[in-house]
């Protein structure tokens, strides 16, 4: 088991190191997040009340769109320099690679989401201090659900024709429950209500996360073989 955990750690460390040196995904995603905020504002108009009522949805649209770009890229680097063959030659259970990639994707998405949230607070002038603990739980559960399926599908579509279209077309319908649950729970959190009001949604999210994780671990070896 310790060997398994070590392999997970190695994949995570490798991905974070590559990202730290190139800053490819992070820089582009942060800029993309900022751009999204501007687009939302432009398309909704200056009416403050109108914007306020759709804030939770906008926030998650931002997370999901940034996540789509970030997750979709997570296996592209492996295609160069025979890295894919390297992954295939890794001894032991291939699910360790999945968990490592999932962990690195979670780190990347968390950083992006934290900054997008910060920009949200500034540009839409909202007070989230009281909502922050609840929001943290909702974002953690939602991001996990998005990343589990996203990592699995990203590995699958990395070597497929029309990858850029296929990845969102496969991922988005599956993620509808996660989106519904997170937007509803975020609404509760932003309104300053206790998070217990959204308990059913959080339970659903946790259950979905668990189901996705189990499927990802069990089926990853089948999508890795190119």
């Amino acid at each position: 088991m310790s060997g398994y955990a070590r392999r997970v750690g190695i994949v995570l460390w490798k991905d974070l190191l590559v990202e730290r040196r190139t800053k490819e995904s992070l820089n582009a995603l942060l800029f993309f997040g900022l751009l999204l905020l501007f687009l939302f504002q432009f398309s909704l108009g200056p009416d403050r009340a109108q914007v306020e009522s759709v804030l939770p949805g906008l926030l998650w649209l931002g997370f999901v769109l940034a996540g789509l770009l970030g997750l979709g890229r997570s296996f592209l680097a492996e295609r160069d320099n025979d890295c894919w063959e390297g992954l295939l030659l890794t001894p032991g259970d291939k699910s360790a690679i999945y968990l490592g990639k999932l962990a690195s994707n979670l780190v990347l998405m968390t950083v992006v989401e934290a900054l997008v949230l910060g920009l949200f607070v500034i540009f839409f002038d909202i007070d989230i201090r009281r909502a922050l603990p609840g929001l943290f739980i909702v974002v953690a559960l939602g991001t996990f659900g998005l990343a589990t399926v996203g990592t699995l599908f990203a590995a699958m579509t990395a070597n497929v024709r029309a990858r850029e279209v296929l990845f969102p077309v496969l991922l988005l319908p599956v993620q509808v429950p996660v989106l519904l649950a997170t937007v509803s729970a975020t609404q509760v959190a932003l309104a300053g209500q206790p998070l217990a009001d959204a308990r059913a949604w959080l339970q659903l999210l946790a259950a979905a996360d668990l189901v996705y994780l189990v499927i990802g671990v069990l089926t990853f070896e089948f999508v890795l073989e190119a």
Partner: protein
Amino acid sequence: MSYRPVVRALGWLALLALLAGLGMAFGYAPREAVQGNVQRIMYVHVPAVLTAYLAFGLVLIGSIGYLASARMGWDRLAAAAAELGVLFTGITIASGSIWGRPTWGTWWTWDARLTSTAILFLVYVGYLLLRAMVEEPERRGRFAAVVGIVGAANIPIVHFSVKWWRALHQPSTILGPEPSPIAAPIALALLANWVAFTLLFAYFLARRVEIARLEDAALQGAVRAR
């Protein structure tokens, strides 16, 4: 008895059952008191959705079977069932729209079960798109199987998320826990049409699997001849 005559007999049986079902829907079943003749759309709508669920169940079975055994027969079953599932989901949505216009006053509404059926449709259209994008049969089978499993596992999650999100559709009268309040002739006509749709589905499925088998054989023959 060989395969072909059985399938052919199944086809004739399905045709007879469909004619009988049609006759019962228009001749035997009484006119519904509130909605009038429009209600007779139910004899298409409900059997279609039940058949679609049967199809997606078979996609799951075929997917698991393929990943477990790597035998192409399972993959052909899953692919054929997915195509038919999309077809019958499409029939469900179209007939429901036609039914909804005079009774609810709208073609489409974001009600819970309409939404979850639409999501189901999108997930399996994605499944078919993925199949179209991967040429190599063995790889296509593996990828599609993973999506088939994720899609099926997602059905209950979608169901609950959308149910909590919104509810307008009448609750299911057949599959509910209480004894069905449907009048006996209507229930009987519905049963007849359900049997007819299931027979038609079985016939289509057998035919589609056979065609896929011949395609694979022809492809292999072409490769060998070269």
